[in-house]
């Protein structure tokens, strides 16, 4: 039996979390086959074939898959699923949207967002915003699993040369249509994979004030995060949200500025290696998870913090 892993990409490049999913897949079974559904996506198929964990690439190159629509993806994946023991992808907005549609068509009870592989049928997954961890055993013949990317190290992206097999497209469903994607381009590291994340909350008071965060993030080569309160208030766009229903991040250093630390925010960052909290309310729950807490007005502390960083001879990148 082997694993079928669904590759997330933009027809040019493989999205980085795919490699974390591949590493989880390899722990389940070494025979990892990956599926690339795309259009003019030869470079994607080629690049994923170089991941040494991958045993075979199935590439279906068709206009139908130019944009990712779960309806079109799931119908062809069902056809290909025979003979596989597991179907896997990342538990990000890509996989969360796709996998349940596959699972239901296969009459499988999906296991979402696993953080650990115990055996080929037993996994650990967080529940209640990570306030509890459940060990669960799947009894279905095919196991449909999404993996929490930040809980697995990425598989290497080079050194292998798997066979690339071309496959036949499925039927067009015509139920839905892609209109547009407003992707926020940035030169910063991606929030999900950055070594350092600097996040702002409601305490920032305005979008304009996020420039204080940006300046520190520039210095530390960090990604910028935000609490839901900051996104809801319109200070910053939704792609920055960290939390139970946003992104889960596990950087080496997480700096929470003006964030009180609601359970839902902690769910997205409390596994970070080192946590710093800067908040003027000494009772804020964020201090309960912080390794280093600074009780201070962020409008004084952030410029000073930048000044101190500027004094250092070297800063890790």
């Amino acid at each position, binding site marked *: 039996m082997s694993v079928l892993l669904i590759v997330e990409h933009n027809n040019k490049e493989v999205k980085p979390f795919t490699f974390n999913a591949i590493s989880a897949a390899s722990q389940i079974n070494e025979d990892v086959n990956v599926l690339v559904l795309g259009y003019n996506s030869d470079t994607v198929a080629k690049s994923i074939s170089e991941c040494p964990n991958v045993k075979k690439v199935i590439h279906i190159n068709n206009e139908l898959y130019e944009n990712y*629509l*779960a*309806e079109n993806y*799931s119908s062809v994946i069902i056809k290909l699923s025979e003979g596989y023991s597991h179907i896997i992808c990342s538990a990000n*907005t*890509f996989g969360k*949207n*796709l*996998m*349940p*549609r596959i*699972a*239901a*068509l296969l009459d499988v*009870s999906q*296991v*979402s*967002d696993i953080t650990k592989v115990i055996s080929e049928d037993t996994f650990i997954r*967080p529940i*209640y915003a990570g*306030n*509890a*961890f*459940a*060990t*669960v*055993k*799947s*009894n279905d013949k095919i196991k449909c699993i999404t993996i929490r990317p930040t809980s697995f190290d990425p598989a290497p992206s080079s050194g292998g040369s798997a066979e690339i097999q071309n496959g036949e497209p499925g039927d067009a*469903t*015509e139920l839905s249509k*892609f*209109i*547009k*994607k*407003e*992707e*926020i381009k940035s030169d910063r590291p991606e929030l*999900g994979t950055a070594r*350092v994340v600097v996040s702002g909350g409601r305490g920032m008071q305005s979008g304009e004030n996020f420039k204080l965060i940006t300046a520190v993030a520039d210095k530390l080569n960090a990604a910028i995060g935000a609490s*839901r309160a900051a*996104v*809801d208030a319109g200070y910053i*766009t*939704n*792609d920055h949200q960290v939390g139970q*229903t946003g992104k889960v991040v596990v950087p080496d*250093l997480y700096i929470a500025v003006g964030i009180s630390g609601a*359970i*839902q925010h902690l769910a997205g960052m409390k596994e970070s290696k080192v946590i710093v909290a800067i908040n003027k309310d000494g009772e804020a729950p964020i*201090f309960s*998870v912080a*390794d*280093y*807490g*600074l*009780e201070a007005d962020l409008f004084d502390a952030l410029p000073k913090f930048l000044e*101190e960083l500027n004094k*250092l001879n070297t800063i*890790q990148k």
Partner: protein
Amino acid sequence: MKILVAVKRVIDYNVQIRVKEDGSGIVTDNVKMSTNPPDDNAIEEAVKIKEAGKATEVVAISVGEEKAQETVRKALAVGADRGILVKAEGTVEPLAVSKILQKIVEKEKPDLVFMGKQAIDDDCNQTGQMLAALLNWPQATFASKIKVKEKSLEVTREIDEGLETIEVNVPAIVTCDLRLNEPRYASLPNIMKAKKKQIEQINASDLGIDTKPRIDQIKVEEPPKRKAGIKVASVEELVQKLKNEAKVI
């Protein structure tokens, strides 16, 4: 147009979760329960569409134990016209919930089904997509904006990279993000009125759906505790600690 909205009764989002000592689950006795937060957004959106004259009826449905009636009643108090409770004991996995909803959809024939994008208890994020698959309907997940057109919806979705807009043919399933709208509070007169609205009760077994979990829950544990941190007195001390003690900058 008729809209069916699925709501789930969960432990209130402000409650500090406690794991049972024997590892068999979460303590739920004497714990405050509420509507799953994004399900409130789903109801709000359906009611707004009706108020705009684009829907004729909003039906709220919940699957769960008898007490889930409170959750349906709350939806009635903010504007749903009538309710349905499908009774099932114990854990009902998203696959079983979606099969129950499929049966109800076949009977009620709504044009749209709304629900929250994720339940904050099991954090599965599956039911809407599963229901869409079973019905062979399109799905618009993580919706933060919905535009009702003649025979379709234009939906803006919150995705990792930013925002995506898709068009889905009606009938369709929409799973709602917390940013879709600001749910209203129920006024006292509307709470009183809701008490008179009808809630139909159905047993899951009468629908021919087996709700026995497929997945074995072997144990539930508390997450590892972080060791207590320290408070630093100044920015200078913070930077020194990060450089020399934690060695992360």
